[in-house]
């Protein structure tokens, strides 16, 4: 009896120790960035439109937004429809489906620099698009596709079979059932996959560095070369060694990701209530 209590206490200590370490590491990163960045952060630095090149984040914010939005416009419909096909229509025994599934799994684990290399060789060189936002978009669109497909598939799998049966028993066809019952029931998981991809896109450097380039100007059109916030951070750290601006940019990046997560939670809650 006593032995069991002791074991119990020991396990608690181990668990709290583990939690303590992870939380400390996370918070020290956060605090380090905040302490170093806050003094360099100004309204000017984030929002100014006429600051010298690299001294306002406005062009990078614009580039990031454009790339995230347009990439999602390509990948989300494609990814969701692929997931619907794989989970609802395709026979799990088919050889083609097995090949597609294992490719998706492999692709989702590939380092982003390889997508970058592909984008560079194919879009930038073969298609002659040069370093441009469009080359970047088409590269990262492929990169996040497997993430969306896998997460959506998981969400669809989690929808109980009994919902589908109930719908069929009322005379509904497959497509109607998917549209009216399955997708709404899976919406939280699908949203989570989109948020995950947005996070991935905002944090992406390697793939964009090689395809969208590093120009720090406000993009004029999709043919412009332009840097996202993360690419900007990389270039000023490596090429200019300016840690102050890098830290300040990091704060903006973190704030962006945090607000996106809050927004996602808010949307998920709203959808659940309805």
């Amino acid at each position: 009896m006593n032995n069991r209590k002791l074991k119990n206490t020991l396990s608690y200590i181990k668990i709290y120790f583990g939690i303590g370490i992870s939380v400390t590491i996370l918070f020290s990163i956060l605090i380090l960035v905040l302490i170093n960045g806050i003094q360099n952060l100004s309204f000017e630095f984030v929002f100014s439109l006429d600051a010298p090149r690299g001294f306002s984040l406005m062009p990078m914010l614009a580039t990031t937004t454009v790339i995230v939005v347009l990439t999602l416009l390509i990948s989300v419909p494609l990814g969701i429809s692929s997931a619907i096909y794989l989970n609802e229509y395709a026979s799990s025994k088919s050889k083609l489906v097995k090949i597609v599934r294992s490719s998706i799994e492999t692709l989702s684990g590939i380092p982003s620099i390889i997508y970058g290399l592909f984008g560079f060789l194919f879009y930038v060189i073969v298609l002659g698009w040069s370093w441009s936002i469009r080359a970047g978009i088409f590269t990262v669109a492929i990169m996040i596709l497997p993430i969306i497909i896998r997460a959506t598939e998981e969400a669809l799998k989690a929808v109980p079979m009994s919902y589908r049966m109930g719908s069929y028993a009322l005379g509904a066809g497959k497509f109607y059932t998917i549209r009216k019952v399955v997708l709404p029931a899976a919406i939280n998981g699908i949203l989570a996959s989109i948020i995950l991809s947005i996070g991935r896109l905002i944090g992406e450097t390697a793939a964009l560095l090689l395809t969208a380039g590093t120009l720090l100007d406000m993009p004029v059109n999709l043919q412009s070369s332009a840097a996202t916030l993360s690419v900007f951070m990389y270039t000023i750290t490596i090429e200019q060694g300016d840690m102050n601006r890098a830290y300040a940019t990091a704060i903006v990046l973190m704030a962006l990701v945090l607000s996106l997560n809050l927004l996602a939670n808010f949307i998920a809650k709203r959808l659940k209530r309805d």
Partner: protein
Amino acid sequence: MPNFTIKNANLYYSDFQALKDINLNINDKNITTFIGPSGCGKSSFLRCLNRMNDLVDGARVTGKFLLGNDETDIYKISDVSELRKRVGMVFQKPNPFPMTIYDNITYGAKMHGIKDKKKLDDIVEKSLRDVAIWEEVKDRLKKSALGLSGGQQQRLCIARTIAIEPEVLLMDEPTSALDPISTIKIEDLVGNLKKDYTIVMVTHNMQQASRLGGHTAFFLNGEIIEYSKTSLLFSNPKEKQTEDYITGRFG
């Protein structure tokens, strides 16, 4: 008069024969219960009646299934949706859709083309009154159906099915996941519904079958061993196997 006539029906799951030469007349505006031990084919047979077996890989049905006065062979209907509008189904576990009570009831009606708001409102009220939960839920029609208790959910599922006014109502052990009080409520409800619908119910519970009355078929190993008036089947079974089963010697 029979509403559903089944002649020489066989069901195969790939190589396995689940039902062997079933012949049955299911009477109109009456209740027919199927009893028998697990795996005897009673639920499989029920699923033949609205072609839910179409969804099972490798399932194959032979024989004639003639529905209604027009004696439509249900396996010759090209649009299975038409059949399922005439033959509704309630499942073992309550499976309301994760949407509002109102949307659950109007799901079938909307799909079959009813758009008029007033008409839909009427359907909702009538169906919920028919299953006797209108008073309980009328103030929360726009709330999620998942917030209801198990018994209420099952009655909602019945309401959802009768909202599209089927001729036949199939029920696959509709009370096996419910508590005794909800079970009694569902049984009372089924007793009322048989005035308007032809009800076919699979049950594991022999008391339930005898309480509900009507006709009963005893299934064993994919065959119907005995089919007669429920009171007769339980008081004076003709077959030895039926007697063994209802007296609890096996199953």
